């Protein structure tokens, strides 16, 4: 008998189930298989009704985040061999409403991303004919790390504040705001600071740093939040001391 491993997978079909519950599947165990391969095996050969999102299978599209044995993971990078002997528990991402099975509703996340104005804002926009804005490698390095976010939302599923305060704009959106704030081509840091300061939850972050730990792209959202809080506090102090303006 070729070796197998069991997966306990959350099933939830709103038309049929009041509550999510686990269903167990036995799949072949292969060294080079990841949890996503096992889910695809289930879908193809055992149960066509299991729903989950996936696409690139190379850790860059951000679709396949799920809870694997209680930890938020990209299932395309979570090897079965790292979870032996099983069973492996596969659940939808924490703190998001479940649409069905392993699919969660991310509408709110998209709204939060949009809210921080993640695009270049500047007073003087050069015509394209003038060529590129200059940016040195050192200037690029100041924000590059924060530009690596793939929107997989593992950091939301790891963040205790997201669990307590649904309005919290969340680690990825703050990191994205900081990505533009630090970009030498952008001039809207103050606008974004105001948006973030007015937003619920941000001051509640206790720097436990779960977001940074689970990030598959080393974006370090906790670092972004820390930077933001420092700028935010300084700005508040300045406006207290220099009420005529802080420019």
């Amino acid at each position: 008998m070729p070796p197998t491993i069991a997966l306990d997978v959350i099933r939830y079909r709103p038309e049929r189930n009041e509550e999510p519950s686990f269903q167990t599947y036995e799949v072949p165990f292969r060294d080079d298989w990841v949890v996503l391969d096992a889910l695809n095996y289930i879908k193809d050969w055992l149960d066509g009704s299991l729903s989950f999102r996936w696409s690139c299978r190379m850790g860059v599209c951000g679709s396949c985040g799920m809870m694997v044995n209680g930890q938020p993971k990209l299932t395309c990078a979570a090897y079965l061999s790292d979870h032996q002997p099983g069973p492996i528990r596969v659940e939808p991402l924490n703190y998001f409403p479940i649409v069905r099975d392993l699919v969660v509703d991310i509408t709110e996340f998209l709204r939060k991303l949009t809210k921080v104005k993640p695009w270049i804002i500047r007073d003087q926009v050069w015509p394209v004919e003038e060529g590129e804005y200059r940016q040195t490698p050192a200037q690029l390095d100041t924000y590059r790390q924060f530009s690596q976010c793939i929107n997989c939302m593992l950091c939301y599923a790891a963040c205790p504040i997201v669990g307590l305060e649904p309005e919290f704009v969340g680690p990825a959106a703050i990191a994205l705001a900081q990505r533009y704030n630090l970009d030498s081509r952008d001039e809207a840091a103050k606008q974004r600071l105001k948006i973030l300061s007015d937003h619920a939850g941000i001051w509640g972050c206790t720097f436990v740093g779960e977001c940074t730990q689970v990030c598959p792209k080393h974006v370090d959202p906790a670092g972004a939040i820390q930077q933001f809080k420092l700028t935010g506090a300084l700005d508040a102090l300045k406006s207290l001391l220099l009420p005529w303006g802080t420019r």
Partner: protein
Amino acid sequence: MDVFACDVLVVGGGGAGLRAAIAVAETFPSLAVTVISKVYPMRSHTVSAEGGAAAVIKPGDSLDEHAYDTISGGDWLCDQDAVEAFVREAPAEMVQLEHWGCPWNREPDGHVAVRPFGGMKAQRTWFAADKTGFHLLHTLFQTSLKYEGIRRHDECFVTKLLVDDSRCQGVVAIELATGQIQAITAKAVILCTGGCGKVFPFTTNAAIKNGDGMSLAYRAGVALKDMEFVQYHPTGLPFTGILITEAARAEGGWLLNKDGYRYLQDYDLGTPELKPVLKSMELGPRDRLSQAFMKEQEKERTIKGPYGDYVHLDVRHLGEQVINTKIPFVRELCLKYAHVDPVKEMIPVRPVVHYMMGGIHTDIHGATPLPGLYAAGEAACVSINGANRLGSNSLTECLVFGARAGKAAAAFASGQSEPNPAVLAQAHDEQRRLEQQFLFKAGGTERIATLRQAMQEIMEQSAGIYRDASTLQQAEGKLQQLQERFADVALEDHSYTFNTELTAALELSYMLDLAQAIVGSALQRRESRGSHQRTDHPGRDDRQYLAHSLARRSGDGSPRIDYLPVKVTRWPPGERIYGR
């Protein structure tokens, strides 16, 4: 049924689709533009592109050189007027993307940096480390958020084009979260749905790349152009098919056979040098490199592995610092998915299906022959890629022709009347079809995965790097049988909520159409050109085949092929020369 109306509807939210939507919003701000996509836009496959995007920017380079590299790289099947427009508009599109925030790598003085790339005679490939597609897509997506005029229907799966009065007037789609069928009417529709690598078993392409838009257009009577031209990228990781970017070779990586020998020197690609030489050896074009692998395999000079033969890509001599700054994603992918550290070990690679040169027949404005229907990106065939695309031309193509299609569609839409009410009756018919054939269907014996696997095996055997008439003829018959078996497909899932078995069935039906178009076009082209190599017709035949194939769907579903001459402006067909 929910009915929505807009002026311009963009299907697909990848590089081409988002660029098209922004072009509409900027040039005709009064028009209502909607982007509909079966995934959230930032999941689109553009995200996986790695190496870079080509556009002439540096002194010493010229538009003519870029055009010539592209045309000769495409084995003279490119339309030269399209290539001239492409290279001319490329630099401005790239600067525009820079202004929108794309984190391009830079020179010490702050100007954008470029790198060499396969088949390119000058350094003109802009790059953001080796995650260029990721940054390009996220920059476009984030920029698109600032246009209030751009609406999105995320995670909605298009099943049909609405055509009435010989004009495309919208689509029917399934909203995945609810299963609700939507009719979205539009005065112009732009298909930006990418390629169909998933018709093959071993591909760099993401799960979503099923050629949805190609098939939608094909079913609406629009021809598919040059479908026989399938690009194998020479360096994919065995088993997963994960792409190891050409940038690894552009930075100086070597391809070695089992004896540690740089075998490309045996295939008229130049002589090995320590440093990379433009248009030579490892910087030759993808078709020639993938063909060289096959020849090495025949000579038993490749390495046997559990997932087929492979050769080695060696980047160790570049050193850790270059690897970490120029190709960090290569290292990350190798560590995570092949358990190999390229700093210390050689990377196992083999050719892998990567890109469709063919696609929906359009003119240089992205317009298809069906009024109101446009296409751009990999889904389209303009054609600037001819018989073999050069690496780093496709991201730029998404921008240039996405923008062109957006502007052309917007101009067309602003002169059109409202869609005919008759299209709503069509939408109701489509809803009934989806319910009867899939959602409410009882019985059926064929598993989706069984049919998909069979299709993929047929395609690999018949339409791979080398082809011949008899295997292609057999494949035609087998694909016809699969079409018949598909009518008996079984669905276990009858839920309206996020039913991915339903979408998998629909995707399979799209791919079966395209597999037939690829095989039919490959069978008819009795010559070898670029990526289409016929062992029974080994030479290029410009007298008969300096022409695009056009596959049209006939009454029984099989493709009918005819030809359209290639547009030659300034570069008459000649020999492709690399390394000498």
